[in-house]
Every structure is written in C-alpha cells, then in structure tokens.
C-alpha cells in the first residue's frame, strides 16, 4: 500500500507538471486577451503529433523536437492571432463568442489531425537508456523523469520571464489592468499577439512532453486536455499564472491518488467535481483573494 501511495505521489508530480504547463498557457491567454481557448487541448495534441512526425520521418529525438516545436508553434500562434482575434473583438460579447469560435477551431484542428493521422492511437517508439530509474523503493521510467525535469525548467524560466523581464512584466500588467498599460505606452495588440504566440508555443512544447509521459494520443485526445486545462485554470484562479502552476501539480496529485484509492470510474469524476466545486465554493481560485464575478 505504501508503495502504491509513493507511486501515486511520484506520478502525480510528473503528470501534474504537464497539467501545470497546459494550465499556465491557457491562463496567460485568458488573462491577457480575455478569450477562452476551447481548442487548447488540440494545440497540445498537435504538439504531440509534431514530435511524432519529426521522430518517425526525420528521426529527430523528442528532446530535440522541443525547441523546434516551440519555434514552429510560436510562429503559428502569431499568425493565428491576426486571423482570429481582431475580428472577434468587434462582436457584441467577445468573451462568450470566443468560447464558441474556439469550439470551431477545436473541431477544425481535431478534423485536420484525423485526416492526416487517422483515428488510431499513436505513440513515439523512443526510449532512453536505461528505460527506468530506481527512485527509493520504486521504479520510474526515465522518459517521465526527463519530462519532469523539463517541466520544472520551463516553469522556472517562465516565472523568471514573467517577474524579471520587461515583456513579462508587461504581460502581468496587461492581466491586471489592460487599460492602464496602454496609457503607459504599451502596444496592446502586439502584446496580445505575443501572448497568443507564447501560449501556443507552450502548448506545443507541452504536447511533446505529453508524448513522452503518456502512453498514446490520438486526434480526439485534445478535448481531455482542454477539460484538464479548464480545471487547472479555474482551480488556480482565472488569469493567474502562479496559481495555475500550483493547481496543475495539485490536480495531478489528486488525480493519481484518486486512481489509487477509488475505482477507475470514480477517479475520472474527481476532476469534474473539483472544477464544479471550485467555481461554487471558491470562484477566485486557490490563491485568489478577491472574487472576479
């Protein structure tokens, strides 16, 4: 039993790291642009397929695919921003309409991946040597440990960026008060495009990690990750990047522990229950102090 719990904690931290990244990119996007990206999970899975294609056709190992994915997805996000968002902001209720629009983007992305890769589940047939490492009394796959290291590194880099650099501070300022930041002379359109590109790049990178951590993915896995991202974002407080990182780890632990203690069916409901519970009991999230309606 102790072994199971220990296993749950280690896996919870690893999975939670991935969830934290999924959540932090979505929360940045919401915070700066006030759009709800329903297609976020599809962007993540697109990252997994990106790594899959690089590995199977060009023999690029997943670790090398990380920076390539970051650059490619950053560019794609930048372009997508200018196609979608400027027109969207002209509608009556941009925040709610964004939900609907990205619903369409999500269907489009899933359909494209279905056309390109068919409905079969894919996995990257790549393994590190040794395949697993002994951590205390339990064995953990090397790929998962590598993924954990990378998530920690990315999170640290992101925190440094947000709190120590000027563009990062501008992003946080835009989340707090989008009107005031324009008075100070920040080009909000360029900053928003940057936020969209950054969030998309993070989603792509997370997708590569998903391919390392989870056994398989397919064209329709995106919705799962979108729901997970919503849970993490709401738990951490809408538009709060630090909260999202923390909430991701907490949710990862909760989910893995639930699979240890509860029957598998119940474990799936835990996530939804956390989401509904948070919105009703603590709508501003774990770290939130003041509730935004």
């Amino acid at each position: 039993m102790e072994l199971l719990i220990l296993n749950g904690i280690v896996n919870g931290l690893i999975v939670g790291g991935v969830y934290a990244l999924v959540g932090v990119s979505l929360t940045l996007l919401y915070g700066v642009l006030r759009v709800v990206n329903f297609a976020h999970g599809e962007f993540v899975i697109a990252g997994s397929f990106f790594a899959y294609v690089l590995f199977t056709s060009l023999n690029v190992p997943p670790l090398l695919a990380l920076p390539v994915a970051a650059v490619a997805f950053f560019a794609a996000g930048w372009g997508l921003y200018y196609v979608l968002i400027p027109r969207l902001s002209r509608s009556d209720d941009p925040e709610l309409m964004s939900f609907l629009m990205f619903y369409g983007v999500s269907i489009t992305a899933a359909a494209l991946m279905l056309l390109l890769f068919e409905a079969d589940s894919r996995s990257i047939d790549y393994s590190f040597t040794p395949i697993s490492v002994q951590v205390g009394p339990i064995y953990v796959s090397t790929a998962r440990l590598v993924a954990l290291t990378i998530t920690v590194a990315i999170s640290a880099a992101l925190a440094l960026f947000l709190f120590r650099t000027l563009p990062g501070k501008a992003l946080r300022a835009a989340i707090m008060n989008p009107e005031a930041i324009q008075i100070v002379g920040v080009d909000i359109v360029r900053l928003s495009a940057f936020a969209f590109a950054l969030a998309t790049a993070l989603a792509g990178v997370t997708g590569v990690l998903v391919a390392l951590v989870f056994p398989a993915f397919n064209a329709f896995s995106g919705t799962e990750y979108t729901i997970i991202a919503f849970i993490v974002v709401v738990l951490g407080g809408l538009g709060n990047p630090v909260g999202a990182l923390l909430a991701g780890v907490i949710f990862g632990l909760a989910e893995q522990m639930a699979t240890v203690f509860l029957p598998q069916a119940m474990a799936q409901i835990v996530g939804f229950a956390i989401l509904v519970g948070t919105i009703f009991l603590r709508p501003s999230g774990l770290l939130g102090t003041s509730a935004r309606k």
Partner: protein
Amino acid sequence: MTASSRAQDSADRIYFTLVALIGGALMIYFASVPVLGLNVAFHFYLMLWITMASAFNVSSGFSGYLPFGYVAFYGIGAFTTAILVKKAAFPVFLALPFSGVAGLVLALLFAPTLRLSGIYFGIVSLALAGICRLVITNMPEEITGGSFGLQLGSRAHPVQSFYVMMAVMVVALGTILWLSRSRLGKALRATRDDADAAEMMGVNVPRVRLYGWMLAAFFPAVCGGVEAWYTNVVDTETAFNTLITAKTVIYAVAGGLGTVTGPILGAVAMVWLDELIWRQFPLLNLLILGVATVALVLFLPRGIVGSILRRKPQWRRFVP
C-alpha cells in the same frame, strides 16, 4: 383608438399572418414527407435539429446562458426512454413523457448553476455533462447496457416516430412563439439585459430564470427519447456526444439567437448544407463544420435573421 395602437394592431396583423404562413407551410411540408415518399431520415433529423436549436434559443437567446453541456439533457432523455421501454416494458408513447420529466429533473438539479454567468456557466455546464456521461457509463450493465448500449428490439416504426417528432417540434415552436410574446418571455429578456433593473421592476429573477431553464431542458430530453426510438439503439458514446451540443449551438447561432425564426432558418440552412457536404465529401464533414463555426462567429455573429434585423430594425415588429 390612438394612432400608435392602430400601428401596433397592423404590425400584429402582419406578425400573425407571417406566423400562420410560415407555420402552415412547415406543417404541410413535413406532414406530406412520408406520404410523398421523400427522404424520411433526412426530414426526421431536420425536425430534430429545428427543435433542439429552438429550445437552445430559450436558454441562450432569451435568458443569456450558453450551456456548453446541452447534450446532457438529450442523453438523459434518450436513456430514460430506452431504459423504461427495455427494462420496465413501458410502451414507447408512455415512456416519452418520462424523458421530458427526466430533463426537467436534471434542470432542477443543475439550477444552482444559474447564479453563475458568462464563461463560468459554460465551463460548469460542460463539466456537468461530462459527469452525467460518466455516471451513466458506470451504472450496472443490467440497467444501461454497458458499452454495448441498449437495443430497443422490434419497436422501431420510422413513420410513427416521424410524426411524433413532428408533434414535438410543433409543440416546441408553439411554446417558444407564445414565450416570445408572453410576460415570462419579456421578463427573461429583461433579466438577460440587466438583472438588477429587472428586479427593480418587480421581476422575480431566480424564478424567471428557472422557468426559462426548464423550458430549454424539456425539449432536448424529449428529442433524445424520440431519436432513441427512431434509431432503436442508445449508447453513451452517441447519446452524450459533444457534437450534439456543437451542432445545436452552431445551428441556433447561424440563424440568429433571440428570434423564433432564427434557429428554424439556421437549422434548415445548415442541415441542408451538412447533408450536401456529407454526400460530396464524407471525410471533410467535420472539418467543414469547424471552419463554418469559426466563419460564423467572425463574419455573421448575429446570425442570418439577426443580421437582417440589424439592417432593418423597423422589421423587428413583424418578424416572429
């Protein structure tokens, strides 16, 4: 009689003439489909989507909520009919009203979510639909049939279920037509636009919202039941498919939320388009649905009827 009330009277006359013409044409057309040997399946689903989109309109157009887990009501309705018919040996006609009741009960269970607004409501609704699907998936196999679902056996009767679907559609459209001119409908719209102001005017906001919500939940549940009877099989994968929510939302938005004719026109246009695309490029169906949604939000956010009314606001009095 003052001039303004006379103008109101003549506006009303045009309005009711339009209602009678559109309603009559729809009824005669659909009633003659099986008689003339037209495509029963196509028209069955056309009526189903008209009903779904119109009922969704009560929640989103009249009350201002966007339930992204709308499929929950449909799925519950489908399973209620299937379980009652299969396990309790109910005749189908007796089971269908229970589907509606199940939808109402679920609406009451979800009623606390009505105090949320905007995206919070949408996200919670999505999560609750997920919970419904998981709960039904994990119920004992003797009740819900597990992953194989429930087969209703030899009870299928396409033409009968076609006319039942038509009756459901007519009742739904009649209810919404009544709602759009009733005190309740006006109270709903007032609450949607400004809940505080509506409350000051004496509207019982929570009660009005609940009534709107229950109306929006009843019809998809009955639709689910009728569709279960029509296809003769129910399983969690199809009955709780998120595409059902997607299509409902897209059809309603395409026509224009907040008017009675909007969702009808939207459903007719999009189901027809969907069928055309499906026949030409079966593989691209999903892709085109997605692209169409994005294009709708970007270029026609108010829908067909909504955009026309924005150009010609003076028509607002005549158009149902």
